[in-house]
């Protein structure tokens, strides 16, 4: 995935929301990043400060909340925890596991002043 352009989207969403709220600055941004989403939280944090510079988001703290991966196994009919995309079902070893969580990529909330 593409952390730099994702970070640009995060900052854009934060600036837009802050304007709508009449805020002067943003102090904290919380994003949900699924554990299976192929986004490196470290890379997001690395890009965030650089992208936020010169905007009302400058200086804000970025908090990355990891969402654990889960999938539905159509062989055992259960929702199981998965640590890796396309990994076999931990219960039966089958590969027919449809991912149901862990792919999230969203700005959940932010703190404005």
């Amino acid at each position, binding site marked *: 995935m*593409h952390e*730099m*352009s994702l970070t640009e989207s995060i900052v*854009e969403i934060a600036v837009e929301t802050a304007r709508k709220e009449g805020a002067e600055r943003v102090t904290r941004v919380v994003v949900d990043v699924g554990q299976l989403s192929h986004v490196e939280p470290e890379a997001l944090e690395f890009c965030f400060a650089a992208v936020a510079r010169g905007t009302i988001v400058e200086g804000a703290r970025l908090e990355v909340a990891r969402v654990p991966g889960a999938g539905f196994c159509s062989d055992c009919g259960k929702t199981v925890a998965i640590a890796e995309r396309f990994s076999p079902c931990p219960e039966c070893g089958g590969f027919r596991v449809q991912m149901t969580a862990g792919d999230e*990529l969203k700005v959940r*909330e*932010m*703190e404005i002043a």
Partner: protein
Amino acid sequence: MCSTCGCGQAEIVLDSGKSAGAHAHDHAHDHAHDHDHHHHHDNGAIDYGNGPAGAHAPGVSQERMVAIERDIMSKNDAYARDNRRALAAKGVFALNLVSSPGSGKTTLLARTIEALKDRLSVSVVEGDQQTSNDAERIRATGAPAIQINTGKGCHLDAHMVGHAIETLGPAPNSVLFIENVGNLVCPAGFDLGEAHKVVVLSVTEGEDKPLKYPDMFVAADLMLLNKSDLLPHLDFDVGLCLANALRINPHLQTLVVSARTGEGLSAFVAWIEANAARRAAAMAKGGA
């Protein structure tokens, strides 16, 4: 990962072959930019640190939390929806070709255009970091092509492609090929508004590519295993490669082709014609 290649806001250069170097943002466009489909939970805002008796001293702002709940990809996805709507309105069947660099996408495309052009109108959007070499190769087949140079960017996004489609103006009921930047990672995550992603893998790349880069093989509907003419010289196991791809994506359709000898290309051409016709029929029925 892209963070290491440093791709940021790409300086996008569109080259239509007529006005070289025309900048992507120089002309007006009518994408719907409003995000009215997003739900802002303004009422769910939680107030932190409310001052005594709600006092609010001028110049001293109070911090508060605002719930947003917005998908980070929403902007790209909104552009992709616009592209899909615009393409559907003209009955254009769009394919997004993705692969690693050097898999033979452009050669494959040129051969496919040669085979298709008597029956269907074809146009091409070419994505590369630099140069308009590929667009020139496509134009040599007689098909109109526009080059997008992404600069530092490692993939095409729906906004760039929207501009390119406007400039290119594909004919009604035609086929549009979008040749993405050679990269087996990032283009998987960016919907461009295409009907299908087609992943091209070549037999010089290793059977385990689908396992190493699963996202791309999940996002694709068709896989072309290219350069089959080289198989006698390699230890490549076609069966193992296809099994790996199907393990990642059980719905993936696969074809073994050679852009050099033309092996399997008639099957790809038939796939395009069948799917384009099916789409046109669905459009006519749905009245969309």
